């Protein structure tokens, strides 16, 4: 749910990028090619998302898989020297707006890597468009608040429009699964670890739950 920079121009899979651009311009034929580029899309998304689930921000992919070293001639090619398989991650590809899945399944801007369990829960649930994490003007702080005591996300308390609050709550509960028991507990434990590192004066790197950490630690 943190903001994700997914500008197509910046992605590592040049071949896939060209193919999608042609499709968007209605010049290309997409029959079957989508599967051909599957790993390219997965690893490009992981690169943009820095290995975390686009919704829950759980860590779902190790950097060794989406590193720049695994690309050759604009295509994903796993470095044979590393000890991992291309499938050694916990994510699945999600079509943010499920209504686009049938006709525009290849659309880059609608794709995110999310935790497989979250994907199985989300299924084809309707989404609100303004909470798509790669939108130009998207900012999680505008829509969400985080309570450090219960470790739950809630709609930003400054939003007064009840309908918008309901929409955000719907997204928290049924699309992003931000307060799913497992997610909430892992996030709480992670924040507690960081707090401990801070208390002991140890260096720390935030590699997941960026939004919640930002609410709790940086503010």
């Amino acid at each position: 749910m943190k903001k994700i920079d997914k500008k197509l121009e910046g992605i590592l899979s040049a071949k896939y990028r060209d193919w999608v651009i042609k499709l968007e311009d209605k010049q290309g034929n997409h029959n079957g090619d989508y599967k051909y580029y599957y790993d390219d899309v997965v690893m490009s998304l992981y690169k943009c998302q820095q290995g975390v689930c686009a919704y829950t921000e759980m860590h779902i992919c190790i950097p060794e898989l989406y590193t720049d070293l695994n690309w050759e001639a604009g295509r994903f090619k796993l470095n044979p020297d590393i000890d991992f398989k291309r499938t050694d991650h916990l994510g699945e590809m999600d079509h943010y707006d499920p209504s686009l899945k049938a006709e525009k399944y290849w659309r880059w801007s609608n794709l995110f890597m999310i935790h497989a369990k979250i994907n199985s829960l989300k299924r084809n649930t309707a989404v609100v468009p303004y909470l798509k994490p790669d939108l130009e003007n998207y900012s999680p702080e505008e829509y969400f608040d985080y309570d450090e005591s219960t470790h739950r996300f809630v709609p930003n308390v400054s939003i007064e429009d009840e309908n918008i609050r309901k929409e955000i709550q719907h997204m928290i509960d049924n699309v992003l699964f931000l307060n799913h028991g497992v997610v909430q507990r892992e996030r709480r434990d992670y924040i507690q670890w960081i707090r401990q590192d801070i208390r002991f004066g140890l260096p720390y790197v935030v590699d997941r739950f960026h939004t919640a950490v930002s609410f709790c630690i940086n503010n």
Partner: protein
Amino acid sequence: MKVSRITIKDFHQFKDLDLDLTYPAGHPKAGKPLDKVCFIGQSGTGKTTLLEMIPLFTSRYHTKSFPEESLDYINQVSINLSYGHEAEYNVKISDVEQDIRFWEVNDSEAIYQKRTATNQDFLAYYKEEWVKKVASKVVYFPANLNFEIDDIGFQHYNYGKIVDFSKSKVSTVWNLLLDSIQKYQEHELQLRQDISRTVEHASTDLDSIKSALNRLEEWKKNEFNPIADVADNCLDPLLANFKLRVKREFHFNTRGDIGFIKIEDFQNNEIPEHLWSTGTKQVVLSALPLYLLKPKNTIILFDEPERSLYPDLQRLIINYYESLTNNCQFFYSTHSPVIASSFDPWEIVELKFNEPGHIYREVYYDGENHVDNYHLNPKTMRWDDILQRIFDLENDGSDFRKQKLDELATLNVKFRKLLDGGEAESGPAKALRSQIQKLSEELSKWD
């Protein structure tokens, strides 16, 4: 006899399902069939069908899922079976036509077996030695155990190809014990009559009376008492949870008077059968068969073993059942996180629907199937964590609790913002603090 693999090509909701039921790499028994397997999954994922697949192939036994006339599984299902004292025989069994079973030893050696026996060593051994002399019959405890206490008194109760408690009443196992109970009671009666006679004929001969009494005491001390044995070694440790125990003393005139096992409370009040709780029945009628049948080298199938059992008992029964048997493989199907916590992660077969509605197995390891690569372990997880991570329950309580937690989180954020704005002592902040306190107490009281 143990199943090491179940493979299903296309059968109802199953499509290209391959269940490896062996220990993973890095385990002392790596590659050998699992001693126990636990099927979990949403209703409709085929747990019972998988259980009932096993006697179909081990014993040509037809259950509800596979009636005599069923043909749809033919050529679609195979199981790998390991048997022999050293598990030296490993076969893959599949039905290629209704009456033609295919036994495959390895890729180079395969035979067709019609209903008539063949001379193949491994098959002859299975049919003539293994099933008849070495291994006990497969035992099946269905989800709806027949609790009726009936069919008692048949000297030679016949279970058929397997011991199927969806068809036979569980109380029939009592017949296995009736003879020895009767002999024990008759002998006791005889000794008591000796005492009476001694008293009658020589009421002043205290030495003779004492000697007769000693004979009874000595006999009681040394003679195997079948009821005490069942009580001490099977039922009393479990019944103690209900403040009950097996009644050890009872009187009868004929074999028919013995009836079924009697239960009493700790004040010696007998509890009539019709007043046994379903939990008591479940405990008695699942543990007793395993104790009395003494299964060995066979397969035991349990559908929903948690039925009617309080969680504290669910915690114990899996290891307990195992302790009553000898070299058996157990298959369980359950919806209970407490039952699931008795299993290593490689023993759990979690069945899920994929998008087109077919069943797949969710594995708990990353990369190679090695003991070190498992990221979930029900044995080390809390029960609520098992509910959330394995049974995919989203919240840690009811929807009402979730709603209240959201409410509390919102109040906390509002309060914090007032604090940050230097309004801690303002009217709204004080009102919020009081609401937060009330709600926190309500929620944390149960946390």
